[in-house]
């Protein structure tokens, strides 16, 4: 559905020298340098997939999305959405996509949410039955009625985002581009938003490309990821595969022995050199180990032989950790080879 | 005391920096001011082209040209956007933040406006003056009149600032800043003598202008610039009259400001 091929975007950045002379000089001759915001990005998103597009600030996420929505034209390379190049066929593309740019409103600041939705119905020529069905859904899940007839400009950020999300899904778009869609939303509404998008994906086959700083959004919605760093793709694959790349894993256990917390920690660290043990809640111990050095099996076996284990579990690797490692230069490949 | 002066001087410095950041807009501002001035000047000059040789209000062609030019330049200096910025501060609620600062808001606003006025004088008013002096014969004042004018012009800037601040207070009632400032500019433009010298006004209008403070904003300084007074005592009386109106308006502004602060306190709970 979405295809990016060696997609590159360069910007000219003008450097104006400080001071009056520099400013006057800039009137006649402008010095600039090229900044490559997106650098040869290639990825594909099949129809119906839910992909998280992740990267640290300034990694080129927003610029990619701007190219995919037709706002800016790539410097080189190309991208297509449903077979169309968005920047060439902007209006035809716009009809089939739904957009939320969290920082920027898509609505009319001096109109109420119901007015805005009615205008959007006209613009996208949404048939009445579809409009009624979607509106009922939004009212139920996003509690649009609570926004009343207040102007969008006077809504709080969270209230506005509920309206933005409704606006982006009103015309049953084939592809949804959501850039920070849950800023300002409380937990209940975040869940509602996840539910809304997952439902659209299930029932209408909506393709999703999502960026969010809230990793819960990603975990709740997406099944695969494209990770960007410094304008380049550093990982493309399922969320599962991403988590498997974790360089460190955790095990938390409790035991019935007489050893105190400090002694337990010392015992564990002696038995498993290189493993960090810390006290967790209710007398449990939390182990952090390097997958390059220890396998889960070895760690568990050691624990079972040394302690009278009463409870033991291994949480998912922390997505934040994995991303942090990726941004820092990627996991060493030999780490994966050693794993059992 | 010295500390607080330094604090306000800091605002002046900040103002200068932000003014210079938008220096490109001064080129455009010169064009805008020159255009506005040209419309009035050409209209009045056309009057003098008529074969009946009229002399409205006793003005000759060079003196009326000078009058209108200096009047428009003063209007430029008076238009420091304090009214709309102040209104905006009230509407966005920034005013509450400003009130929490250890500086008096009106005084801070004035300090921020001073560099704008100075920059407008140097980068806009003087170039436009030079342009018109090159195009038309003007009547230049002597040293004494120039000094009197300088005092009156400075005073008029303070008066205009107070009027702008009072205008900005409308924002507590309505959000249509555009309409209110348009209304103010128009009323002030008419009764200050900016479009028609009070001497050339029909009697009822001239009487009305005499009763309002706005005449002190334009007519008084330009009158001194052109030396249109009889004796030195006459000139000093004009200045005293202007100072009185300025003091009165500043006082009114201070009173309204106090009520506004109370009202904002009430609104914010």
């Amino acid at each position, binding site marked *: 559905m979405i295809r990016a091929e060696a997609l590159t975007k360069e910007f000219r950045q003008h450097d104006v020298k400080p001071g009056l002379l520099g400013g006057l000089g800039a009137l006649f001759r402008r010095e600039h340098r090229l900044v490559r915001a997106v650098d040869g990005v290639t990825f594909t998103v099949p129809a119906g997939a839910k992909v998280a597009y992740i990267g640290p600030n300034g990694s080129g996420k927003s610029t990619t999305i701007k190219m995919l929505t037709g706002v800016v034209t790539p410097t080189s390379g190309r991208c297509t959405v449903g077979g169309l190049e968005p920047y060439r066929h902007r209006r035809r593309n716009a009809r089939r996509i739904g957009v939320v740019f969290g*920082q920027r409103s898509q609505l009319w600041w001096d109109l109420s949410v119901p007015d805005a939705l009615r205008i959007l119905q006209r613009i996208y020529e949404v048939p009445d039955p579809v409009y009624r069905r979607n509106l009922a859904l939004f009212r139920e899940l996003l509690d649009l009625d609570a926004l009343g007839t207040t102007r969008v400009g006077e809504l709080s950020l969270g209230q506005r985002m509920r309206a933005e999300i409704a606006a982006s899904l009103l015309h049953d778009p084939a592809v949804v581009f959501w850039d920070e869609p849950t800023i300002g939303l409380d937990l209940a509404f975040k869940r509602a938003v996840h539910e809304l998008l997952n439902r659209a994906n299930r029932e209408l086959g909506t393709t999703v490309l999502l960026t969010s700083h809230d990793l819960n959004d990603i975990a709740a919605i997406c099944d695969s990821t494209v990770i960007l760093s410094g304008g380049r793709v550093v990982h493309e694959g399922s969320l599962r595969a991403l988590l498997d790349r974790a360089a460190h894993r955790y095990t938390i256990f409790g035991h019935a022995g007489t050893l105190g917390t400090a002694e337990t920690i010392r015992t564990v660290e002696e038995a498993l050199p290189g493993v960090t043990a810390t006290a967790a809640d209710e007398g449990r111990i939390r182990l952090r180990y390097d997958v390059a050095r220890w396998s889960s099996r070895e760690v568990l076996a050691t624990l079972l032989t040394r302690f009278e284990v009463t409870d033991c579990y291994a949480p998912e690797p922390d997505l934040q950790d994995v991303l942090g490692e990726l941004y820092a230069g990627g996991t060493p490949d030999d780490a994966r080879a050693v794993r059992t | 005391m010295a500390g607080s002066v330094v604090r306000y001087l800091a605002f002046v410095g900040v103002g200068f920096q932000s003014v210079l950041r938008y220096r490109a807009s001064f080129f455009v501002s010169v064009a805008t001011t020159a255009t506005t001035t040209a*419309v009035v000047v*050409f209209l009045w000059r056309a*009057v003098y082209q008529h074969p009946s040789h009229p002399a409205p209000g006793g003005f000759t062609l060079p003196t009326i040209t000078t009058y209108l030019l200096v009047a428009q330049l003063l209007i430029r200096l008076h238009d420091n956007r304090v009214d709309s910025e102040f209104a905006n501060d009230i509407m966005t609620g920034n005013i509450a933040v400003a009130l929490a600062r250890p500086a008096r808001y009106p005084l801070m606003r004035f300090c921020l406006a001073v560099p704008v006025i100075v920059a407008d004088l140097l980068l806009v008013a003087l170039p436009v003056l030079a342009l018109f002096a090159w195009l038309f014969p003007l009547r230049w004042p002597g040293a004494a009149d120039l000094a009197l004018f300088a005092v009156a012009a400075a005073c008029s800037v303070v008066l205009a600032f107070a009027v702008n601040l009072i205008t900005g207070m409308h924002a507590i009632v309505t959000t249509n800043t555009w309409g209110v400032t348009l209304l103010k500019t128009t009323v002030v433009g008419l009764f200050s003598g900016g479009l028609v010298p009070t001497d050339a006004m029909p009697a009822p209008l001239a009487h009305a202008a005499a009763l309002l403070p706005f005449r002190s904003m334009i007519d008084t300084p330009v009158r001194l610039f052109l030396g249109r007074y009889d004796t030195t005592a006459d000139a000093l009386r004009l200045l005293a009259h202007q100072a009185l109106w300025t003091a009165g308006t500043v006082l009114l502004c201070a009173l309204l400001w106090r009520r506004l602060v109370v009202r904002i306190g009430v609104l914010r709970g």
Partner: protein
Amino acid sequence: MNRAATAPATLHGLLYYAGLTWFLCRVSLRRLVTYRADFLLGAIGFVVRTGVQCLLIGIVFNWVPTLDGWTRDEVLFLFGFALLPRGLDRLFTDWLWFVAGRLVYTGEFDRYLVRPLRPLYSIVAERFLWPDGAAELIVGISLVGYAGHRLDVPLWSAGTLVVAPLCVLCGALIYASVKLLCASLAFWVLISHPTMHAANQVAEFAGFPVGLYPAPFQWVLTWVLPFAFTATVPVAYLLSGEPGQLVWLPVVTAGAVAVALAAWTRGLAAYRSTGN
């Protein structure tokens, strides 16, 4: 794509935009009713301003019977007529001020590019029926009616009824083109509001006969920023019945529109979407 296929598509496009415009105008009317206090204040401000300008004309004619050959009523007629194209333009395109002043600079312009509309339409459609434009039209029509009646201008003749609205329409297009050209500059310099403001000030010249101004000014107002064609030229025809420069009006209008649209198109391609 063959011609047979494009024709219905174009027709559908026209109907689509016409229907949308009608709908958005209705939304704007409701908006006016909701904020009628704001609307009234703006209207009062405008009426007072126009009143003062008429007063200025009155005062000037206290001293002389004619100005460059124009009588008081003729100048009032011209002044009123000049408000019509300006008001008509303002009624529909004032959102361009925000393009020049803010939208490109902050990157908010993005939102007009993700809607399935032509960007220019999308921009002006942000808000139709600006109340200030309505006030301008009403005052202009009143002045033209008053002065035209006193001057015995055949306001209800077929010729006037056909030519005058066309002149107003062309004049509005000239105003819109100048505005669009200034707004387009923002794509390169980010904020072009001061330039637009300056051009808007130049339009003030149009409220009086261009004969009042020196020859170089007249030339600029006729052929560079062709505001003379929005008032002086059509009014000279309406008062005298002689076409004069009026034959150039369609050409000048087409030229202005073409230049503005070219600048807009090139500007859109240069849009960088700065901000976050």
